[in-house]
């Protein structure tokens, strides 16, 4: 049994923790939260320099050719600091989509740029409220031109390239080119920019066979779900640690609030949820890395339990902080906002619960 990160991966984690402690302290998150920027461009540049954006991209396309286990480690650490950067959009979604379905030409065109931070990527599926289905999508491509509106598009204001799910396929669109108009929309996580993008005949290249568009999208969602889940687990863990730290130092009626069972059992519940979620993420990372048949189950399991763990930990972290917890001045809000953002950014808990049972049914049928 060897169900653990290896020494190199643990070293990478330590390095990432040090790097992020230096370059993404709470003040950095707060600067984006309080300001008008859509992301922390300096931090992003440094992340690129660390090679994190290049992690799983093969060397032939300018990447490091590392495994998804390394990327999982980075995802968790970025989640732990609530990094205000477009890593999930660019790496888990856009890069993944091209790796998964891109032609050699497309890979050559985009992967080196994505690896080197010369381009930021994103993913555009949602066209408004509710759970999207292939049948309901209005966006479509005809004669290589994309028309329709996507809202919200995470990091859409700063992305250079978008992977767009249209009613008739999965497409790659150069957002710096013609036919893509963006308008910033505000989400409850002010530390992450989102946009509405109106496509008016933007040139679009099919990713994979257009008739496989919806199936490819589902596969992409599974792959991204594992990495999102790691980021969520990182945030959940940070929330638990904040809550614990505060509860140990805060006294009421002559003793630390951490000695009251109401708080102790709350933190124990966080620990339990976080641990189960993390263990499911391990399995997700393994399945992603080995491209196992279990991926749909593993992804949904990791995603559902991480979403639940992060929501619980982030809200009960505030609760543990009492009055200070809901002030702007304290950092608890970073995780509460991010928990909700990450949970809807890739489809809700109940969507993933439903995907999980579908995956079990398909696995039983196979």
């Amino acid at each position, binding site marked *: 049994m060897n169900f653990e990160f290896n020494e190199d991966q643990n070293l990478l984690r330590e390095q990432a923790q040090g790097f992020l402690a230096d370059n993404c302290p709470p003040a950095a998150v707060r600067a984006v939260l309080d300001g008008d920027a859509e992301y922390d461009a300096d931090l992003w540049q440094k992340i690129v320099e660390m090679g994190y954006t290049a992690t799983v991209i093969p060397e032939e396309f300018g990447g490091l050719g590392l495994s998804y286990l390394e990327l999982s480690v980075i995802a968790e650490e970025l989640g732990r600091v609530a990094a205000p950067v477009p890593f999930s959009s660019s790496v888990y979604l856009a890069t993944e989509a091209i790796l998964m379905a891109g032609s050699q030409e497309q890979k050559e065109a985009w992967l080196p740029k994505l690896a080197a931070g010369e381009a930021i990527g994103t993913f555009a599926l949602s066209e408004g409220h*509710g*759970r999207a289905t292939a049948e309901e999508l209005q966006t479509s491509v005809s004669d290589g031109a994309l028309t329709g509106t996507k809202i919200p598009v995470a990091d859409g204001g700063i992305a250079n390239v978008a992977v767009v799910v249209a009613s008739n396929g999965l497409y790659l669109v150069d957002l710096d080119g013609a036919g893509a108009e963006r308008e910033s929309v505000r*989400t409850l996580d002010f530390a992450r920019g989102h946009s509405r993008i109106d496509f008016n005949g933007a040139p679009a290249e099919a990713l994979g066979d257009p008739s496989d568009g919806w199936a490819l999208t589902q596969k992409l969602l599974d792959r991204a779900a594992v990495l999102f889940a790691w980021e969520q687990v990182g945030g959940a863990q940070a929330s638990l640690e904040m809550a614990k730290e505060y509860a140990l130092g805060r006294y009421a009626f002559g003793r630390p609030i951490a000695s009251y069972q109401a708080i102790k059992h709350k933190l124990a519940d966080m620990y339990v949820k976080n641990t189960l979620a993390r263990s499911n993420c391990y399995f997700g990372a393994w399945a992603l890395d080995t491209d196992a048949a279990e991926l749909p189950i593993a992804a949904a399991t990791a995603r559902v339990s991480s979403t639940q763990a992060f929501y619980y930990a982030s809200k009960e972290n505030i*609760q543990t902080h009492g009055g*200070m*917890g*809901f002030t702007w001045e304290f950092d608890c809000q970073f995780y509460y906002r991010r928990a909700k953002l990450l949970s809807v*950014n890739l489809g809700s808990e109940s969507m993933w619960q439903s995907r999980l049972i579908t995956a079990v049914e398909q696995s039983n049928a196979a």
Partner: protein
Amino acid sequence: MDFKDTPEEAQFREEARAWLTDNVPTEAEMEGLDFMERAKLWQKSKYEAGWACLRWPKKYGCKEATAIEQVIWNQEEAKFSNLPLGVFGIGQGMAAPTLMTWASDEVTDRFIPRLASGEDVWCQLFSEPAGGSDLAALRTKCERDGDDWVINGQKIWTSGAHYSDWGILVTRSDPSVPKHKGLTYFFLDMKSPGVEIKPIKQISGDANFNEVYFTDVRIPDSQRLGEVGQGWQVSITTLMNERASIGGGSSPVRFSSLFELAQKVNIDGKPAIEDSSVRAKLADWYCQESGLKYTGYRSMTALSQGAVPGPENSIGKLVGAPKTQDMASFAMDLLEMSGAVWDPEFAPEAGLFQQAFMGAPGGRIAGGTDEIMANIIAERVLGLPQEPRLDKGIPFSEVPTGS
């Protein structure tokens, strides 16, 4: 069992409704006035007609009405949505009863009519950063200096401090005796030199509370309420009068808002309301809302029969606050990828759900955390014993504080 008023209640309701219909100012009449001016205008109008502070003694120009009459008045007044209420809540609900119990006739004769007529706005200066749920652990110092007291320290979570004329204040006069025994209680002019007020920004973006700093603030001894060292007993009077909330209070997110949303958004091509997991969640919230509503009806019946509202009313906040949080979160889940978008022109109901989600953590804490509410039910309703108290009987200065 029915939902009807008694004949006396019905008559009172009729009178109240008639007066309100005739006297509630129109939007035109209030045009150009700011929130505070509107509030003062309306309060004064009520006072002059004898409808202010219904339960207070006749000698202050009030009706000496019953508790249920007060409830009926509140219900009828609440039907007029343009009335600026709430500004006088702390003064009339907490400061006034404390003054009536502890102050000299001279003081009450001066202040109570002004409180009733809305001339003065009061705030409450109890909570401190180190206090939280442990209110009596407050540290703001008072020291005697001639006929005055000198106050130094910091209060927090003070609603309305910035527009208040007066404040009620508990301070520590003696840290060498056990916690509850070394407190002294005052009221003070909020414009006193040395009082500094800073708003606290909440994660929802609102700023409903303030920090209040005291630097060598002087209060005449004549503004002390109760004896030196008796501040905790005086505070109890204030706290017992914290308006007992009947029923669930109002939540920004209700069953009906979620129900409507679930009719509008789709899951897999069909309205979400047809999805049985959505139905199951909505049903549970309906049951909670309905349970709180009829618990409120039962409390009102008790009130109508002369009972005093008790700690069992904590149930409204204990159930309502986390419910608001979970409902808001679920509403955003129903919206799926667009759930986090807060732009009012895009988000349903102008961002109601996102706003409620960001406000909910405060709702679960302000006015008593979920955990304190559960303690109140356990101890004061069910009669279970307190936790062991390590701060009992030892000097306040020796109670461990972790700092």
